[in-house]
């Protein structure tokens, strides 16, 4: 069932798409076919779709630069209960929500990627999110067993970008490890499976 597009931001996005698309052609792959949407436009859509409490939207960090752009990392409670972590770039927004942001784990994150589904077919991969206040350091464990430190910002936010050379070899993040002061490990989050080749 399709309803009308009533949100101003979504209407603006639609109008932009119409102008930029040259509609009628059957494009077959993603490409830079339109101007980049603003962070605010995507964030407004997410606030509406997820029922976030906009007054309590809190930006924890803006990390990254060209070629992949700035990643703004937010946390926000939902009006109906629960909370989300949001990662916004110029052209997409990812959100992960849970009844309790740091319920089962000390890290709230999203993993965004392009070019899968298999590890070797993946061309870009980033992990971004926020760690709980008791986390002092963070490591990503790769599928080849190596580990990499992931810097935390003052707001305990982070961004990890997988090396292209690792992705070419089919090496992807396998787990996140969180440590509190003194280097004691307090959490491990397995990052799950990827579909078979």
């Amino acid at each position, binding site marked *: *069932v*399709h*309803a*009308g*597009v009533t949100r101003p931001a*979504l209407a603006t*996005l*639609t109008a932009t*798409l*119409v102008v*930029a698309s040259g*509609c*009628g052609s*059957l*494009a*077959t792959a*993603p*490409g*830079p*076919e*339109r101007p*980049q*949407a603003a962070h605010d*436009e995507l964030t407004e*859509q*997410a606030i*509406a*779709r*997820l*029922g976030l409490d906009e007054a309590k939207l809190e930006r924890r960090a803006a990390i990254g630069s060209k070629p992949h752009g700035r990643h703004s990392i937010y946390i926000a409670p939902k009006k*109906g209960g*629960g909370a*989300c972590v949001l990662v916004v770039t110029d*052209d*997409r927004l*990812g*959100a*992960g929500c*849970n*009844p309790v942001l740091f*319920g*089962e784990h000390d890290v*709230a*994150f*999203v*993993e*965004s*990627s*392009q*070019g*899968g*589904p298999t590890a070797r*077919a993946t061309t870009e991969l980033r992990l971004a999110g926020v760690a709980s206040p008791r986390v002092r350091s963070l490591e990503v464990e790769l599928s080849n067993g190596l580990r990499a430190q992931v810097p935390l910002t003052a707001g305990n936010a982070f961004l990890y970008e997988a090396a292209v050379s690792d992705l070419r070899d089919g090496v992807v993040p396998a787990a996140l490890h969180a440590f509190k002061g003194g280097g004691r490990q307090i959490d491990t989050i*397995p*990052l*799950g*499976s*990827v*579909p*078979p080749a």
Partner: protein
Amino acid sequence: MGPTVAIAALVWAAAAGATVTRYYGPAVLVPGAGGGSAYDTPCERWVANDMVRSVPSLGTVAFVDLWGGWHDTLKSWGTETLQIASRTIWTKKAHCYNSWSAAYWANCSRGSVFINTCTPA
């Protein structure tokens, strides 16, 4: 557990006031299994992909091209994973996938925008 997932999806649709259609569930997804939508069209493009789960877990959403390649893939821990993309003028279907180690109930929806000046395929 299923109705809880369904209600969450309805709340999402009402809040957005946009075009939202469920393409999978409520149904059980076992580890490694997924559900997919139809392909979008030149006149209606998928822009959002949302997966709501019955228990805190790992879930993945992606847009899949005509050759099976994944784009705008997003994985997160919790009970909901949402991706909104603004580069949308390419042919895709929405897909949601259980990337966790146990089965859960899932409800997957895609949001779309209508392209006013399109030529139907």
